[in-house]
């Protein structure tokens, strides 16, 4: 009745690419053995080879060597392993201070909070109005007690790309381990560990048209880290549990399928949307930096209206987006990112995130702008806020 769905929430999840599914299939129906059975029978050898081949396909995307990548169940596990694993390895030996930022995604933020309850001291760095971490505060916060800095590569909501090269260099000078959550940048924004002093990197397949339930943690050789789960001796003894071989194969295929041309195309759609909204719809504010943002992310506040109403109206017209409004979240909390960049609650409530993916077209970008222009006009007409400020 509403026609086809235009999915513009690709930072949350993506449609699986059929080619990924095809690559995975044999590992469900033919080579379904576990990789640890390589000394038992031939499909065990094949399984082990498939896992290592996937690892070898993935790591060049980071400039890393295969033995530096641990497969996990996704970003949440990877970031938990990075923060808690380092804390467990160094908490007794070196220190109990960790630095992160106020606008991290929940796996990092809540791992930090959980460590805080266990007696670790956490510094949550401030960010400026575009979402960049306060570099001077970082410099001033590093002490002999600091064991880890965790600052995301790019933000999940507003797409701001941090200068992780400078952050990493500072950490390197002080001998502090540096973790970055690259869930929203992996293969979309260059990140090469041969050039960038990063020790731990969270990556995931679900944001690049790969399967859910598979991710990874790049772990630079020699980084002190302890496993969180006890069990078998998989993943260099850092991640016990049966290997998700179909997932790993699918992840590797997903990485192979991302091209620079595709990233360019995403950026073109993003820019069209941002330019049109800001010029055609009054009382709108772009959240995040105009250019230093992930190629597929646009986040805009539509003042005097509430985000859940916008998303529901868009949904009725066949567009799926997300918002930083408290009404949209399960916690009824306004976006900590928009509040973190100094926005007030009104700015958070009216914020809408559009994230493009492989299956979007320029027609989708134009279509959503036209739909939202009408919706915002209607909602403003019934809003008691319009007159005071408009």
């Amino acid at each position, binding site marked *: *009745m509403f026609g086809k769905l235009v999915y513009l929430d690709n930072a949350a999840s993506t449609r699986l690419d059929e080619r990924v599914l095809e690559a995975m299939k044999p590992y469900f129906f033919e080579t379904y053995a576990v990789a640890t059975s390589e000394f038992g029978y031939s499909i065990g050898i094949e399984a082990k080879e498939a896992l290592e081949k996937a690892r070898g396909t993935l790591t060049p995307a980071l400039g890393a060597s295969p033995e530096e990548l641990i497969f996990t169940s996704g970003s949440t596990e990877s970031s938990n392993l990075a923060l808690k694993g380092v804390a467990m390895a160094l908490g007794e030996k070196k220190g109990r201070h960790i630095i992160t930022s106020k606008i991290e995604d929940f796996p990092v933020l809540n791992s930090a909070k959980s460590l805080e309850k266990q007696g670790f001291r956490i510094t949550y760095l401030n960010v400026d109005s575009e979402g960049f971490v306060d570099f001077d505060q970082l410099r001033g916060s590093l002490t002999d007690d600091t064991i880890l800095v965790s600052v995301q590569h790019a933000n999940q909501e507003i797409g701001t790309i941090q200068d992780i090269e400078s952050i990493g260099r500072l950490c390197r000078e002080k001998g502090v381990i540096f973790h970055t959550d690259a869930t929203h940048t992996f293969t979309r924004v260059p990140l090469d560990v041969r050039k960038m002093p990063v020790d731990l990197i969270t990556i995931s397949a679900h944001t690049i048209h790969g399967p859910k339930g598979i991710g990874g943690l790049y772990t630079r050789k020699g980084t002190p880290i302890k496993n969180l789960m006890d069990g078998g001796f998989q993943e260099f003894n850092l991640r016990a549990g049966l290997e998700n071989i179909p997932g790993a194969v699918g992840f590797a295929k997903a990485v192979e399928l991302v091209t620079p041309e595709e990233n360019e195309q995403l950026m073109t759609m993003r820019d069209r949307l941002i330019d049109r909204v800001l010029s055609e719809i009054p009382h709108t504010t772009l959240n995040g930096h105009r250019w230093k943002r992930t190629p597929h992310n646009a986040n805009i506040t539509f003042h005097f209206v509430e985000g859940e109403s916008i998303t529901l109206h868009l949904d009725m017209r066949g567009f799926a987006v997300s918002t930083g*409004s408290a009404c949209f979240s399960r916690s009824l909390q306004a976006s900590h990112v928009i509040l973190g960049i100094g926005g007030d609650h009104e700015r958070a409530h009216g914020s809408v995130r559009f994230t493009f993916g492989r299956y979007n077209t320029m027609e989708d970008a134009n279509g959503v702008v036209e739909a939202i222009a009408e919706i915002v006009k209607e909602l403003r007409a019934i809003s008691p806020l319009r007159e005071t400020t408009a």
Partner: protein
Amino acid sequence: MRFPYSEKVLEHFRHPHNVGQIEHPDGKAIEGSPACGDMVAVYIKVDSETKRIADIKFESYGCASNIATGSIITDLAKGKTIDEAKKITWKEASDALGGLPPIKAHCSVLAVEGLRTAIRNYEERHGLVKDKEPTTVEALRRRLRHVMNPLTGLDLVRTKLIKEIEMKDGTVRVVVDLPADHQFASAIKEDIIEKVEPLWDVEKVLVEFTE
């Protein structure tokens, strides 16, 4: 397609009834604040003979359940006497909408409170408050629970920003524990005056800040 709301909610959300303002209303109310996420304004015209609600309009800055509740509650109140309208509960509004998700209750309660406050505002302005008890500090504190602190989205009482309340010879003095140059100082001051001034025995409202 599937939505997290009933058909009835969606219908009122898509095409809300009784939307807008009434010029020179007999009673009005604004509940909530942009900070707490939802805000609703209710305007009423009351027939002075029959005490029936002749016209009612609302405006909403809010989510679907806030808009839909505003729409249904104004439908339910129209034509009723103010005493009948006062008694409309959130449950009745919610039932008329075919139910609301529990997590959305707080968004929709605002519209119900808005209606009651608009009626009280009418009664106060027209000398109809029956039990004319002198306003106590406790009663003032209850009123101030409706003034939001935009920083947190919570009310001033709950966030412990009310340092002093005094009522003397018709003059109310409220001391707010915020600097006078605070970004929301003037908004909070205005809101306090708007909520306290209509009380029948209040002649003057003084709002002071701590620094």
